[in-house]
């Protein structure tokens, strides 16, 4: 039975319109065999949470270069929790000062990818995470 394709939502939260990174990642993930939905620009955390739910994604990739990451991520993680989407992996890429990374991880961001990250590193991370999540949620099988 073929593996279910990993579903990824690539989102641009907030007012920032710099979408080069988001688009490159979207294409790279598609090339790596994932199902990618790109939200387009200027999404509120509410819009992203709704899209993630509707599209039943495994991963949300946020692209933020505006410095608004703390506010936007906190908002989004609250909404995802309210929607009981704790099993969704949330990643962020962009311009994130080193000192903010620990706090972002504390609120549930799985990884922060800084400028210079290769697309392969992101592909590998996602595959690994989704595999882990899938293994963790497998029902215990008795011998057949």
């Amino acid at each position, binding site marked *: 039975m073929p593996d279910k394709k990993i579903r990824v939502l690539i989102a641009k939260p907030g*007012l920032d319109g710099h979408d080069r990174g988001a688009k490159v990642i979207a294409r790279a993930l598609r090339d790596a065999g994932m199902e990618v939905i790109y939200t*387009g620009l200027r999404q509120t955390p509410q819009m992203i949470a709704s899209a993630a739910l509707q599209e039943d994604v495994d991963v949300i990739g946020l692209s933020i270069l505006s410095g608004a990451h703390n506010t936007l991520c906190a908002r989004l993680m609250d909404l995802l929790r309210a929607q009981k989407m704790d099993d969704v992996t949330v990643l962020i890429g962009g311009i994130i000062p080193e000192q903010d990374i620990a706090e972002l991880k504390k609120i549930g961001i799985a990884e922060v990818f800084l400028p210079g990250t290769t697309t392969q590193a992101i592909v590998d991370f996602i595959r690994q995470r989704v595999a882990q999540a899938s293994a963790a949620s497998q029902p215990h099988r008795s011998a057949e």
Partner: protein
Amino acid sequence: MTDEKARKVSAAAPPVHASPPPFASPRKPSPAEIGWEESTLKPALANSPDRLADFTTVSSYPVRRMYTDADLVGWSPERELGLPGQLPYTRGIHPLMYRERLWTMRQFAGFGSADDTNRRFRYLLSQGQTGLSVAFDLPTLMGYDSDDPLSEGEVGKCGVAISSLADMEALFDQIPLADVTTSMTINSPAAPIWAMYLAVAEKQGADWRKISGTLQNDILKEYIAQKEYIYPPGPSLRLVTDTIEFGAKYTPKFNPISISGYHIREAGSTAIQELAFTLRDGIEYVENCLRRGLAIDDFAPRLSFFFNAHNDFFEEIAKYRAARRLWQSVMRERFGAKNPRSWALRFHAQTAGCSLTAQQPYNNVARTAIQALAAVMGGTQSLHTNSLDEAWALPTESAATIALRTQQIIAYESGVTNTADPLGGSYFVETLTGETERGARDYIAKIDALGGMVAAIEHGFPQREIADAAYRFQVAVDRGEKIIVGVNDYVVDEKPIETLHINDSVARTQTDRLRKLRSERSNDEVARRLDSLRRAAAGEENLMPHLFETVKAYATLGEICDALRQPFGVYQEVAIT
């Protein structure tokens, strides 16, 4: 004029150029060169072959192992090169270039509140920068007040928060607009922001006929690359034309537009695409102004341009030279401009932000220096150099100072300012200039064939070209075909550097200020002005006088941009990945 009519006018315009670039002859090696290939090159290659399979520019344009007279067969110095300050302006737009006057050292700055930025402005001026350049925050860029729900988390983070004339007054406190030139990087709300600037100038007693500066105000590149659009193309172009028309009449020394390639390049385009899309945007603006009934020589001298200064030294120099040569041909042949000041392309350059690394940030000082040098050797009129912490945050004061010093070192210590167009006549640079010009003309012809730039944008053409180029570049980097020092080679473990941190107290201060403003102004007057603006926007009159009165009543930027959303509508892009 309806969109349909406008498109017909565009399609009826003559094809790109009456006289295509004359020289594109195939390479013709001389007997001496052929001899050299046998006696010198072949044994050298046999001994140790090329380091790489391909040698290409940053834009992946192939570069030959050397350039000789063989590459310039048919090239004429009179036709292709000319002399400085003379057609075709390849060598620069002034006869003396930097011997007469250095480029303006104009560092882009802005963060937090107007007071914070005012302090940074006065610091940079005290350190020898010769012009101001304002960076606005995202809410301001998108026409939202600091206290708008959509502004949450964003106030003052990417630039200065300006929500009203009161903020603009604070921004230029102790800065005489009569004596200092200011560039403002603002696009969708350029017209109301400019109205605020003009109001500050009036308050200070500065003569509008003498004040100088630049408004970026280039909406087409927003749809293509930077994506800071509010309204659809039609109404947005009307606003741009309004500002150009108003400027031509009232502020003859002010550049009402900075037709930009910087952002197109940052989005991942090649150098040729950057040049082509920028100049084609320029063509579109000129056509709009002509349709308005303006005479070409009345406004064309004040069109200004803005290019990227990226890593590949010679590719960039060739690009600036090709830009000047191409634009004079557009002005003269396509539009029949008669004033030499309409022919001469003036530009500001900024070193490439996208090339700077988060890893080993001090390396960025070297990158910025090389890029700045290219801009100077390419004849720029104005220059911003990025700070070493570009990939981490807005610049600290010390990082911003090093960036400024980089320009000063080039100006006073490197010797490149002693002569105009130092690389003129170089086999390599002249060949590359010609190839860049040809490549740009091809793209311009393609866009003409699509029905113009607005049509091309609706087709997704420039956006797709840019996305493809960006992706190709990333693939090359990921494969190690393009080396980025510190990122995919020469990688080390490192500790983070100190960076500028902007906290949310700015948002709270702005919210208080706005509350105070709304309670102290005449809200009746504001309502009257906004109403008048809305009605004028639904018609065809120039909106600048309305905007001027509206900002003076202390209507906020958000209120103004919102009032315009009704008659103009909003733009939704179809995302191309």
